[in-house]
């Protein structure tokens, strides 16, 4: 019998080596996990912090509305000093303004006339256009005929050559061979003639095509658009600078200066107090107590260290304040405009005023077209991918005959899901952009993205469908439901949550990808919104669009870096991250909810 004391002894907690190893490893794993979390959080927080500076404002409406509603623009920063604002300079500006004012009616008149003439010419032009079109058709037909002729000639030559070879093989007499050769040469000549004819026709076709373009450009609609643009530009330049602009900006600047001076002073006071105190403490330590005593020495060193730290922190704060001041000042003097507008009009006034202008591409305006483009691409590609993907999944899991072939198909789909997106981009470029000749276009991008997510959608939808218990199908079939009815009522409703989750993830992936659209759909900059300036409805699909991910790529690597671009970069990245995160978050929430709802 063991008495209770010794049995207690037996089960006492002990430190064994195994337990130490365990706690070591568990701590290692814990640290690793938290490093991952920390790294990701750093990324989120940094981008969110810098991004909010761009997209939020201190005053009503608290959001930088322009950032979400404008196109990217060049940022112009003016520099001037007070000495420059002489009467004569201002007069020069006024003179330019008068000039512009005079120009407006002139231009108006000019365009009116032009439009009237153009209207008159329109009927004629249209007529011509019709003729040209007819000509083009005729030429195309001719070309085909000639092509056929050429093919025929080539065949004849081939036949003749074959015959010659045969003769040659038979050691036929010299004369016969000679004649044969003459015939071949004649054939070649004939083909050459055909070729020349063909070249002529091709040329004619090219001429006609350019003629057609010219004629289209002459139509009054084109003229009207052009005139509106020119007149708008002129008007806009009249609005700037409004009277007293420079004075006002100067005042604002002075105010900013004063504000920052105040801040700096406060900072200085605070830190000098701290520094003084620390110094005093250190001195007291050093003078009053035995300097040889190691403990005092340590205390003294500590004091000194803290002093240095305080100084460092102070310097850093001052530096930060200085950059903020610089930014605030330049913001007071900045001005945003699209390139074309600027070159045309504002430049004249700026020059007259003798203002120094620095331009920063992509640093002004907003990202509206990029947001629109991303939405269009996502919606377009997901429509294609979901229709094809879900229906295919239904077929593969419900209708297709199981066997080797089906397994092979499944295997290849699963494998395709892992192919790098850039390879899909390559395919899209070769197929849609080059081979089909769609050019860099919305349609090409949508199809490329759709095919990229197609394998993912098929695989996960199939998985969701196959996860529905077989009993649901059998139960319904045994009641006399048709196959389709039982799929519709007893399979799809239960597979839907799974399908939905994977689709939402697909949306996040499509919206987030850059590589496949880089050379299939994305433009670095496009002034028109997708629905503007279309000749015919189909043009909508064959135009390139801006897209958020590509925009981030462009502003972060393709243009010179400076403090203005940085604002644009972080703003875009933050908005983009926010959008994608929302989608992904939806998907995760959806999955958790659905798991709870549907359990069988």
């Amino acid at each position, binding site marked *: 019998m063991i008495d209770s004391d010794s049995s207690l002894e037996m089960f006492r907690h002990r430190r064994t080596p195994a337990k130490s190893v365990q706690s070591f490893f568990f701590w290692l794993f814990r640290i690793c996990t938290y490093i991952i979390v920390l790294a990701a959080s750093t990324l989120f927080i940094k981008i969110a912090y810098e991004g909010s500076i761009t997209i939020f404002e201190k005053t009503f409406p608290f959001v930088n509305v322009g950032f979400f509603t404008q196109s990217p623009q060049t940022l112009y920063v003016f520099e001037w000093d007070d000495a420059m604002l002489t009467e004569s300079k201002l007069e020069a500006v006024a003179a330019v303004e008068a000039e512009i004012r005079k120009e407006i009616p002139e231009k108006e008149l000019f365009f009116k006339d032009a439009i009237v003439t153009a209207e008159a010419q329109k009927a004629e032009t249209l007529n011509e256009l019709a003729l040209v079109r007819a000509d083009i058709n005729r030429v195309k037909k001719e070309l085909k005929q000639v092509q056929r002729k050429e093919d025929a000639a080539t065949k004849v030559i081939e036949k003749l050559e074959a015959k010659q070879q045969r003769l040659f093989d038979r050691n036929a007499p010299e004369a016969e061979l000679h004649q044969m050769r003459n015939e071949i040469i004649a054939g070649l000549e004939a083909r050459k003639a055909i070729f020349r004819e063909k070249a002529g026709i091709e040329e004619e076709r090219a001429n006609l095509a350019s003629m057609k373009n010219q004629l289209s450009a002459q139509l009054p609609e084109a003229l009207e658009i052009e005139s509106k643009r020119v007149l708008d530009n002129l008007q806009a330049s009249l609005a700037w600078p409004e009277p007293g602009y420079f004075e006002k900006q100067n005042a604002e600047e002075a105010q900013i200066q004063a504000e920052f001076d105040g801040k700096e002073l406060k900072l200085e006071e605070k830190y000098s107090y701290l520094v003084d105190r620390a110094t005093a403490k250190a001195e007291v330590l050093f003078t009053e107590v035995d300097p040889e005593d190691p403990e005092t020495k340590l205390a003294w060193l500590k004091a000194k260290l803290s002093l240095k730290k305080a100084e460092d922190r102070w310097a850093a704060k001052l530096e930060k304040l200085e950059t903020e001041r610089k930014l605030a000042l330049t913001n007071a003097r900045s001005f945003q405009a699209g390139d074309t507008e600027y070159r045309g009009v504002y430049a004249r006034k700026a020059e007259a005023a003798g203002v120094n202008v620095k331009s920063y591409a992509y640093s002004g305006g907003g990202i509206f077209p990029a947001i629109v483009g991303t939405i269009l691409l996502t919606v377009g590609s997901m429509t294609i991918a979901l229709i094809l993907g879900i229906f295919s999944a239904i077929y593969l899991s419900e209708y297709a005959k199981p066997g080797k072939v089906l397994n092979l198909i499944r295997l290849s789909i699963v494998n395709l899901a892992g192919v790098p997106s850039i390879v899909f981009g390559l395919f899209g470029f070769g197929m849609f952009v080059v081979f089909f000749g769609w050019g860099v276009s919305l349609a090409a991008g949508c199809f490329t993205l759709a*095919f990229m997510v197609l394998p993912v959608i098929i695989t996960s939808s199939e998985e969701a469908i196959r996860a529905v218990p077989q009993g649901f199908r059998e139960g319904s079939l045994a009641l006399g439901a048709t*196959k389709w009815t039982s799929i519709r009522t007893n399979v799809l409703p239960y597979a839907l949550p799974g399908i939905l989750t994977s689709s939402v993830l697909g949306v996040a992936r499509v919206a987030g990808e850059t590589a496949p659209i880089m050379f299939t759909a994305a433009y670095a900059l496009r002034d028109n919104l997708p629905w503007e300036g279309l000749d015919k409805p189909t043009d909508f699909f064959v135009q390139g669009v801006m897209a958020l*991910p590509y925009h981030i790529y462009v502003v972060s690597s393709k243009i010179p870096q400076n403090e203005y671009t940085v604002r644009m970069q972080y703003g875009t990245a933050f908005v983009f991250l926010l959008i994608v995160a929302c989608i992904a978050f939806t998907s995760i929430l959806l999955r958790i909810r659905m798991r709870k709802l549907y359990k069988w």
Partner: protein
Amino acid sequence: MNLKSSNSSFSAESIQKQGNGFLGVEWGTYIKAFFGGNAFVAMFVLALITLFLFKEGVGFFPQYRKDMELYRASGQEFVGLLKTELDDYDELQQQLGKVQVSILTDLYAEGKEWEEVTALTAPFQASLDQTSSAADPLRQVVKKAIDITSEAKEAVVVNNTRREITGVDLTTLMNEEQSAAFLKSSREQIIAMMPEIEAANDMFLENLLAAQEAMPELNLSPDAKKEMLIYEKGLKTFLDSMTKFDDKLAKYDPEKPFTFLQTLGGFLFGSQWTTNSSWQDFYGIWPLLSGSLLVTLVALSFAIPFGVFAAVYVNQVASSSEQNIIKPYIEFISAIPSVVIGFFGVAIFGTFIRTLSEQDFLAWVPFFPISERLNAYTAGCLLALMAVPTIFTLAEDALNNVPKAFTEASEAMGATRWQTIWRIQIPSSLSGIISAVLLGFGRVIGETMVVLLCAGNQIAVPELSKGLGIVFEPVHTMTGIIAQEMGEVVPGSIHYRALFCVGIFLFFLSLLINYIAQAIVRRYKISAG
């Protein structure tokens, strides 16, 4: 109890097929056909992708072969050997230049004035000039040879292009034989220059040795001495290789045809990817592949331990509230668009790494401070962040699938949790973990934007001689090159096709990785009880 309301009789007619359908075919058939049609389109499209990649890519090899044949036949390849020699020499000269810079900085640092410095370094300057002019005779000859061969090649290329466009044997154009003869004449011209070249080469060697003799005795600071040592070492290898060069020149046979195997080898193992060059374009995938592998290596060396450890932690150690937060959070990381991560690298992480390497307390690390902020290491670290969720999720799943009975049995015998994890759980989920790692590998090597933005985009095979420092070299990758150059190529050109070939390579690589990963899972699947 009467459970039947009506007494519908069961008869032959009642279960007969009724004409319910369209055109004598049942609705079910149409529905099936509809889904089948969709499935067909999807499969067709997916097959098309593969076919299309091939269609565009395969044409590369004959085209490249022709190109290389021309390169050889025109004698350019031969002249190229000489050109490399001169290029090597130029590089050596640059090293000497570094020595000079180092000397000058030292002198100025001592507070000497310009005149004084000039006077002090005059002998060194003289020998420097002598060294640099040593190669002049060879340069002249080679320049002549370059002109001849380039002209010949150019003429043939123009001729061939014109012939291709017109499609007819115009008398004004050369036919195959004529152009071959034309090239031959150019080649012969070069061969005729052979004695001249050899003489020039000998002279070069003589001059070089003479210049070396004339190099004044210098008392150098440690920094300058280091540079000088590098120079001397470089010079020695150069002199060695020069003798080998003679052999190479002598053995060289321009008539040898360029085989298909050589073309394939040139693509797979060629160490140069040069495009739009005025001399000759080379499409060797090796620098890109090695860059990709280097970046992947860095990424995985972080992602594997972190991903797997985190999986074990979350699955085995963490409390359930911790689990509920960390798991979705890490899964959430995988939704961060790659371009945002790349941007983070360009904007913050690259600079951070460089600043870190410049810190005093890290000065002992041999390759610090690093010179480029965008390099394989920067890209690798960020890619690790992308690969971690993949590895984490799959490894966690694998751990989850280990039957509870195993762990219970182990713990019932008094094993600690860690022992159970280490001896039972990890071995039984190893196949899952390995396939997770493989899929992470696939994700990393196929990633484009991060490497395009952060890897530095320098096309060069990383030099192993740098030791671990190679991870701080800027590199270019397969995905990066496609993204960078695809927008600017002429469709159908050899460059375009070369990029497709890189794409095909990537395609197969990822298929292979995926396939292996799946095979491992399937083969070692333990039945979950």
